[in-house]
């Protein structure tokens, strides 16, 4: 909402002229002033001067040399405007040194075609008064004596404009009268709203029929005959322009002035274009259409409230008039409407057609339903002032009475809620000056009638807020918060935090990724089909909620690679959205991505490989639950399609699959333009219990010594080391404390297709020192089992000398 300081000053005599002071007080009371700017900046330096001579420029076509009388002196100027008046006409001169912010220019002497011009004749656009830059401002010859300062002759050419950001609960602030009332309270000054005389006229003959009193409780109207539609005078145009409303014609401008003054939208119909002497406020019927003033044909909905004449809809109630009954320069007779429409009805229609008008904005928030007569009378008076016309008749239909609310305010409650006592006198004064009517004076409670301009107030707490905001929240002294025992951060936040801590500790960097993704990305990654689709996505690549964290990570990786950042260690932690009950299941998940080369120490960089990915995934889980997950390669039939056939594994913890990891499938790499390979892993955190480590039980430290044996076998390269280790462990049984692989070797003297695997087996018994013979026998059994099971040949087995 834009507001004019000079207009407010006329409504609140004595209001300070210092814009910052007014702005600060409005902001302090909850009507936030976001900006203050000057309308007509530069006009204060300009003079009204008389043209005394005009001759063509000696060398430049289209330019003229204009001699002007500025009262004390004459001067000659170069002017290119097409509308320089005959001698005697009056124009506006910006003297040397004037700064015109609208054009960001300072007037300096300029030589044009050999003639020096010391000043400029101005258009309205150059002064920022309107967008009209076609010609200079011209006044009648007898306007004012030459040399009169422009603002003396034309005070409306300068103003201070506030940009006020109004919250939706304050429709009263959408008109200058409402803002003035507020300021009168804040500055404790008298409030002087216009008092238009009651319209004294007979009822006119146009029938007014209202079908639904809920949607249109009040409808006031007036008919004016014989108006002269034309341009508005300067003060009207300036006022409208200063407030961001385009001046159109005196009649339309009047409705806009009243809108800006009362905050109450009105509409003017050309009476001749209202068919059948009838106004019918009703719901649109099936198949009806309306061409609105913006020239768009709209197929109406059965929920739209329309103003119809005998032939059909002619306005969309409270939103926009129809082109068919628009006031034009030829209009002679007017039908003025000033009604109260149901906010929700107007809002639904406005949203249905994506229209947001000055009118719908106000009706949606709730205009003052008690001021229809005043606004209408004001409009009639202004029209008669600007366009003449005879008031032929008025008519008012009240389909439904809107009862004023009555609200009690207990002083004890106010003190209790605010933690600060406010004097009852102060509270009463504030509320009364805001327009609340004190109805009843109880021992502790006052009962107020709510004024019609405050539809937002319906409860005691609303009154408390009114008092508090006017008194000022700064007046309420802060009280130290009561002491509560501090609590550890718990819940899902704690889990996510632990995961983040470990992931960062493992050298991963956290990415913040969107939860909405493109459906195609999920399909590409073989992720579960989306459980949640957006009905109104903002972008076509954000249409469903993710069922995997990978799309966001992959986008980040692809973007980084486009910017030549090739080495990536990223993770993301957040929810994925899967099928659930009434609401989807939101599962906490972590995913990471490795790409490019692992950091190396004074050696050639090498690309991340399967064991980097596995090591990271295993370490992450290990650090969270203090036990080691297994990685089990996927079978071809169950392998997720986004992973490479050669490198795809499930992460298994205590027999349960908790995640997947692997190399991104090259088809996926190509599809998302990743430009190089990437290793990815994703872990379901709902299966991770970070409290497990707390339940650790101490185990006695082993008393008896260990004894180790090594074992190296040559087997076919398709034998998995883990399978061999498992057999070793199974055969060695309880005596094997650990089985570690320490070498894997191919090539050299080994036949093609063969691989040498070397294991280190640590033997120990819990209850005795093992004898060499016992261990050797066990290890021999291990060797036999391994060679026979895997068809391998023994390369060596030997015992390690204890150090």
């Amino acid at each position, binding site marked *: 909402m834009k507001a004019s300081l000079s207009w407010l000053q006329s409504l609140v005599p004595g209001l300070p002229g210092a814009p910052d002071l007014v702005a600060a007080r409005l902001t*302090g009371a*909850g009507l936030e002033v976001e900006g203050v700017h000057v309308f007509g900046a530069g006009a204060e330096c300009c003079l009204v001067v008389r043209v005394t001579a005009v001759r063509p420029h000696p060398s430049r076509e289209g330019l003229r040399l204009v001699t002007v009388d500025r009262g004390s002196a004459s001067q000659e100027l170069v002017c290119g405007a097409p509308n320089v008046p005959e001698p005697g006409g009056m124009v506006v001169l910006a003297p040397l040194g004037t700064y015109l912010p609208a054009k960001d220019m300072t007037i300096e002497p300029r030589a044009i075609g050999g003639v020096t011009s010391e000043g400029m004749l101005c258009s309205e656009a150059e002064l920022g008064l309107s967008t009209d830059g076609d010609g200079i401002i011209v006044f009648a010859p007898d306007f004012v004596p030459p040399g009169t300062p422009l603002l003396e002759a034309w005070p409306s050419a300068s103003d201070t404009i506030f940009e006020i950001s109004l*919250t*939706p*609960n304050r429709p009263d602030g959408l008109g200058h009268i409402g803002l003035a009332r507020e300021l009168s309270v804040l500055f404790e000054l008298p409030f002087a709203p216009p008092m238009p005389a009651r319209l004294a006229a007979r009822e006119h003959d146009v029938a007014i029929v209202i079908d639904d009193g809920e949607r249109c409780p009040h409808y006031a109207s007036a008919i004016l005959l014989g108006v002269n539609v034309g341009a508005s005078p300067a003060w009207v145009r300036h006022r409208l322009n200063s407030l961001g409303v385009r001046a159109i014609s005196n009649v339309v401008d009047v409705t806009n002035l009243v809108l800006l003054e009362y905050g109450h939208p009105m509409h003017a119909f050309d009476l001749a274009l209202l068919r059948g002497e009838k106004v019918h406020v009703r719901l649109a019927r099936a198949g009806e259409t309306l061409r609105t003033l913006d020239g768009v044909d709209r197929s109406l909905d059965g929920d739209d409230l329309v103003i119809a004449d005998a032939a059909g809809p002619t306005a969309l109630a409270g939103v926009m008039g129809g082109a068919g009954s628009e006031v034009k320069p030829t209009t002679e007779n007017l039908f003025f409407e000033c009604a109260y429409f149901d*906010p*929700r009805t107007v*809002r*639904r229609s406005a949203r249905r057609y994506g229209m947001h008008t000055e009118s719908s904005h106000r009706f*949606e928030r709730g205009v003052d339903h008690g001021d229809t007569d005043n606004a209408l009378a004001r409009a009639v008076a202004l029209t008669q002032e600007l366009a003449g016309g005879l008031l032929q008749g008025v008519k008012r239909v009240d389909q439904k009475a809107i009862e004023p609310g009555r609200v009690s305010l207990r002083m004890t409650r106010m003190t*209790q*809620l*605010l*933690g*600060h006592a406010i004097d009852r006198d102060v509270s009463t004064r504030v509320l009364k000056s805001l327009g609340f009517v004190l109805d009843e004076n109880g021992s502790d409670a006052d009962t107020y009638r709510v004024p019609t301009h405050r539809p937002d107030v319906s*409860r005691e707490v*609303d009154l408390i*807020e009114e008092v*508090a*905001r006017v008194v000022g*929240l*700064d007046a*309420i002294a*802060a*009280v*130290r*918060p*009561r002491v*509560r*025992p*501090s*609590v*550890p*951060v718990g819940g899902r*936040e*704690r889990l996510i935090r632990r995961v983040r801590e470990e*992931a*960062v*500790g*493992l*050298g*991963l*960097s*956290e*990415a*913040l990724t*969107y*939860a*909405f993704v493109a459906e195609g990305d999920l399909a590409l990654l073989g992720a579960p089909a989306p459980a*949640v689709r*957006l009905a109104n996505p*903002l*972008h076509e690549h954000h249409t469903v*909620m993710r069922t995997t964290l990978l799309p966001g990570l992959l986008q980040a990786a692809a973007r980084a690679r486009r910017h030549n*950042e090739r080495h990536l*260690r990223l993770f993301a932690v957040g*929810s994925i959205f899967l099928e659930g009950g*009434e*609401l989807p299941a*939101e599962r906490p998940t972590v995913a990471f991505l490795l790409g490019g080369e692992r950091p190396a120490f004074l050696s050639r960089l090498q690309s991340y490989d399967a064991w980097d990915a596995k090591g990271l995934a295993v370490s992450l889980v290990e650090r969270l639950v203090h036990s080691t997950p297994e990685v089990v390669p996927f079978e071809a039939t169950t392998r997720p399609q986004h992973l490479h056939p050669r490198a795809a594994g499930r992460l298994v913890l205590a027999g349960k699959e908790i995640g997947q990891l692997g190399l991104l499938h090259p088809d996926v790499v190509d599809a998302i333009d990743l430009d190089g390979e990437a290793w990815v892993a994703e872990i379901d955190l709902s299966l991770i219990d970070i409290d497990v480590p707390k339940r650790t039980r101490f185990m006695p430290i082993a008393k008896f010594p260990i004894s180790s044996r090594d074992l190296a076998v040559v087997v076919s390269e398709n034998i998995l080391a883990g399978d061999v280790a498992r057999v070793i462990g199974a055969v060695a049984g309880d005596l094997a404390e650990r089985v570690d692989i320490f070498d894997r070797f191919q090539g050299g003297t080994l036949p093609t297709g063969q691989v040498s695997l070397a294991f280190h087996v640590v033997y120990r018994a819990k209850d005795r020192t093992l004898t060499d013979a016992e261990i050797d026998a066990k290890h021999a059994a291990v060797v036999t089992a391994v060679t026979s099971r895997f068809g391998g040949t023994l390369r060596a087995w030997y015992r390690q000398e204890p150090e």
Partner: protein
Amino acid sequence: MSTEVEAQIDQSLATLRAAFSPRFEAAAGAGGEPALREENAKILGKKGELTAILKQMGTVPGDARKRIGEKVNLLKQEVEARFEALIKTLAASKRDAELNALPFDLTLPGRAPTPRGHRHPVSSVREEVLDIFASLGFAVHDGPEIELKENNFTRLGFPPDHPATDMQDTFWTTSGTLLRTHTSNVQVRAMMSQKPPMAFVAPGAVYRRDDDVTHSPMFHQIEGFVVDEKVTFAELKGTLAEFAERLYGPGTPIRMRPSYFPFVEPGAEVDIGCVFCIQPSGTRRGCSVCKRTGWIEILGCGMIHPVVFEHCGIDPERYTGFAFGMGVERVAMLRYGIPDIRLLFENDPRFLSQF
């Protein structure tokens, strides 16, 4: 006979006595400690020269034997002493050489156990804010990101078809649920399932249909709320003042401006004294961050609206409460001087590695 042998032995001992030290020195000089030990073994070892001399003693009579024995022992001690001394000298010069060798090039990079990982700035701020409220006795409460209209709007007192909902342009799902527009849904859920007193903070992702320099369609919020008997606006103010001092430093002032959120009343927006243009004197000059006002808006707050209590089955006469909410991205952007919210979601390694 015996004296002849004795004289011979004496002769051998004298020869050895004269020779052992130069021999040790020569060996040590040529072959270091191993050669020295070898030389020592040649003299004192089981098959060594001194042992050989000792073996000749069997042929001499008792008293001469005793004498020779003493001489041999004496020589043995001399040899051992010399040997030990040389060993020590050798060790010392070895230590010395080691100490004086070329220093390691400590300007070469260190071998990091793992590369450094980076927390996202939004996460760092989120953790810090939650820790502050946890220490003030607020427990963390979770809630779903996809929510029923009732919990996101209706029970919070958003009237249907009301412009208040324009303040939070909503993503709807095809099944009629919505992406929560604030974490205030947690307030509703907590109040519907628990009895006062309660003090919670609810962090998490929220969604609004907005996308520009200062708005992201997904962002993060932390809402806090307290419900108890006799909770006051003054206490809300005190709580937020405490928070501001802990997050932005002691002495950071707050200012409250009345504002409107459907689920609180009185409602307010909270500004902190600008932390970017504060002068050593404590005054604020005004800067581009605070738009020359000296104040920066950081959160919205208010007393929980009685209608919310009614919708959640809590007696609004008996209980009062306050609630506040802040955008985590905004706090992070202010803290680190990040000008564009989109930087937070691009995950550029050159961005992430700065935090």
